[in-house]
């Protein structure tokens, strides 16, 4: 079995290092609408409804929903060690940045290639926000 490894530059927003299985969402994510005890997305109409964000490297376009609830949602997951290991986004917005800082989750954007083209759910992804480097490993 061949292993494919790709290294991509990115832009650091919130520093740190995190690695895990990729979970790709084409839709924005609201962390308040996940189950705080499991990390499972409860929003019935969401494409990832029923899937858990816990300990994943989450790839998504941006955050959504009111500022207050987004931060509380991610903070509650982090306090139970159920937050994503790292987050890769296309468009940053203030509320998501603040959420990542408070929950201490590495956050990057401006991947040198379109993250939705190069990263697939299930890939192993290492996000080194300090070095502005994302490594993909596909088996």
């Amino acid at each position: 079995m061949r292993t494919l490894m790709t290294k991509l530059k990115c832009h650091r927003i919130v520093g740190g290092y995190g690695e895990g299985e990729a979970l790709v969402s084409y839709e924005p994510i609201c962390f308040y609408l996940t189950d705080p005890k499991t990390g499972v997305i409860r929003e019935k109409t969401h494409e990832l409804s029923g899937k858990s964000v816990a300990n994943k490297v989450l790839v998504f376009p941006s955050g959504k929903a009111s500022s207050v609830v987004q931060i509380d949602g991610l903070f509650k997951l982090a306090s139970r060690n159920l937050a994503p290991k790292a987050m890769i986004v296309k468009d940053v917005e203030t509320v998501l940045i603040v959420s990542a800082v408070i929950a201490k989750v590495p956050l990057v954007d401006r991947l040198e290639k379109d993250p939705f083209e190069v990263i697939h759910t299930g890939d192993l992804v290492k996000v080194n926000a300090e070095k502005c480097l994302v490594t993909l490993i596909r088996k």
Partner: protein
Amino acid sequence: MHLTKEEEEMLKGELGQGTQTAIELLVTIGDAYDAEKMIPISRAHAASSGQEGDLYFVELLANGGAKCRVPTSTNPVYDIEYFEGLFKAPRKEAEVARKVMEGYKRLGAILSWSCLPYLAENIPLNGETVAFSESSATPYVNSVIGARTNREAAQSALAAGIIGRTPEYGLQLTENRKATVLVKVEVDLNNEFEYSLLGQYVGREIGYAIPVLAGISKHPSTEDFINFCAMANTSGAIPMFYIPGFTPEAETVEEAFQGDVPPDRITVTHSELEQMRQELQTARGEIDFVLLGCPHYTLKQLGEVARLLKGKKIHSGVDFWVCTSATAELLAKRTGYIDIIEKAGGRVVADTCIDEPCWTVYKEKTGMTDSPKCAYYRRFKEVAVADLEDCTKAAIKGKNE
């Protein structure tokens, strides 16, 4: 980002740990947006919520000795003592809320506990640089007043209030205040509830955008603006909007777009407003409660409630609530409105948000409100949304017909 000598000292922790935490957050945001520098702000509004994430950050700042450098007001949490005497509110959550409220006091914030600080407790002027979080506050101060704020999180607004600065990015820059979507309004809007419906529809249709509402010929009232802001920035992300002729930053549609008016547009007619009205008017039949004041009712709206309830009796099976600010409550009491509302069997409560654990008692109950935002939080079994007049009629009859 270029920092001044004083900002460098803050970042190194020379002005205390709390101040350091505050500027670290703002430098992270500034770097994310490639801001060149920090700019001074004159005031801030923190959308305090009494939740765990809120508590964590407030205590981090307060324990680190931080104090607000500029007037920084706070959002409603809830009147803990009042509700403890009334319902058995969940203890653990009350403890979190109490600590949050103490934390803001230690930070030297203005304890307004109001979601409309821009009306009384902390009012920006046209052209001021500020950091205002809270759904209705961000678009209101940008659009209706013409001050400048980004769509802040509670924590970034609080951090800005602590250091008296914000990174220069986004809506702090003229080129980013350009309108992005044209909305043709082809229906007469008759009251503030119809502005709620308009906000609900526009936010849902356009998501993150700066709309121009063209075609409105009658000057919107303060309450019309408040409702439009709150709903549009909840169903969507609308940090700013224009109504040429009535908002100060652009006289014409062309000016709002800084020249390039896009060909695409959305149109709102009577039928779109009716569609919203139908979607929101869910529960029919007997109701257990009516909850008004999301956003907080103004003094004028408290007067309107008093007019509708004067000499009437609210049905014995219905709890009737109006949330407002401490300032409006004081004046409503003095003016005699609260007396009338209480004689009819209703209650007016200050400092309280409808998205708080004090309302857990209604979790399995059916109610009515005039606020689509109140229904959006889904704290209750079922909530029908209708205008104030229908809400008071239903409260008197005990059912929504």
